[in-house]
């Protein structure tokens, strides 16, 4: 099949771009987790902040991705072209699912268990670490999973601002009106999303069954 041959011919390039893509997804989701999970924990202790911060993350989601990439370009330091500003935009998008799931995950822990924890003399931190977080992990992980799959898709658009990744192949295919090139980018991207979703889903299932 012609497409298959094309993909084979370009396999080095496809592999390079896939790795670039994976890097972008990994770093962005990683940062989003490092920021979102502690922030989500904090919000459960500071209810007043919950509404505005979750609201902010929500609004970020509604901004069209290309527009957000564009907004960031003129900003000094964090902006500009390339992986740096793309990462910032991707982190902002990944934030909502992770933040929200951490927050609601902790909030929906069985109140009887939390009360037992309080009653037996756990400090707030001990309650968080021994009870709330372990029990919220499946929900948090579900949020990470959603964020990861989301990010794989959005990263294809980052190619517009020079961030590389599989989006490069897609954009090139678009300008050349060459479907094979488009698919050379789109198929690995879809495969990446499916694979990550499956792996994280497996981990999620494992952790849930332990409860």
């Amino acid at each position, binding site marked *: 099949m012609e497409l298959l041959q094309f993909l084979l011919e370009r396999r080095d390039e496809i592999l390079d771009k896939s790795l670039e893509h994976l890097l972008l997804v990994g770093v962005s989701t990683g940062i989003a987790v490092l920021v979102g999970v502690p922030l989500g924990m904090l919000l459960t202790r500071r209810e007043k902040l919950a509404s505005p911060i979750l609201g902010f993350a929500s609004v970020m989601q509604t901004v069209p991705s290309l527009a957000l990439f564009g907004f960031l370009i003129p900003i000094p330091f964090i902006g500009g072209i390339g992986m740096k500003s793309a990462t910032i935009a991707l982190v902002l998008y990944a934030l909502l699912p992770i933040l929200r799931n951490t927050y609601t995950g902790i909030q929906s822990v069985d109140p*009887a268990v939390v*009360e*037992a924890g309080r*009653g*037996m*003399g756990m400090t707030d931190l*001990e309650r968080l670490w*021994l009870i709330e977080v372990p*029990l919220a992990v499946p929900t948090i992980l579900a949020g990470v999973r959603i964020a990861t799959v989301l990010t794989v898709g959005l990263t294809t658009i980052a190619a517009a601002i020079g961030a590389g990744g599989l989006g490069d192949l897609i954009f090139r295919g678009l300008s050349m009106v060459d479907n094979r090139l488009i698919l050379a980018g789109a198929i690995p991207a879809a495969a990446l999303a499916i694979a990550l979703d499956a792996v994280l889903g497996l981990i999620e299932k494992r952790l849930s069954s332990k*409860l």
Partner: protein
Amino acid sequence: MGDPAVAFRGVSKSYGGDKPALRKVSFTVARGETLVLLGSSGSGNTTTLKMINRLVDPDEGEIEVEGRASRAWDPIELRRRTGYVIQDIGLLPHLSVGDNVGLVPRLLGWSEKDRGARIRELLTLVSLPPEEFGGKRPSELSGGQRQRVGVARALAADPPLLLMDEPFGALDPVNRRRLQEEFQALRDRLGKTIVFVTHDVPEALRLAHRIGVMHEGRLLQLGPPGEILDHPANDFVREIVQLDTRETVLGR
């Protein structure tokens, strides 16, 4: 001997709304005594209990625990020295039975060896052989077994004072009766001070050294079960206690 384990003096509490939770409640609990606060929900008995380990703080009045004003106690330290058993038990589902029981000793920094020994001791005490039950998950246990674990957990650090909030309320009548009997045997052996909340009259009559009848935030009467039955202080008390007194076995 000496000062009471717990003392309440003119304690009031309001959560807003028109009905205050507690109105000038005063009583003492002697060491080694089992005081049952009898009343339906809304009577203030649970609120009273929670003030003892400072899960709730009073608006007015004074509370003393172990001879010290409750305000002077660090809440965390107080709670670690007080056993707390609740109706829904609240076992940590992601930990084994053994780990659940050993929680307070862990918080107190006991060595693993000491913890292990204590866990085995307690599981045996509540008739749950440690070899069989130690490694199980709470989800694998029946309701009655779970509450036994709850009691074992509350006793783990050997607290002088035990607070129990409708601990057998979620059990079926057969199991409930069984646990009450086991509790009695245990209680007599351990000699702890116990404050016990329930709305179940037979349970109160069975387990209490003294009963405090509560209604709408007031302590209506305080006395041994016989006194409450024979000489109810007023109509309220009479009514509350009237239900199934004839069938009650006043075992002591």
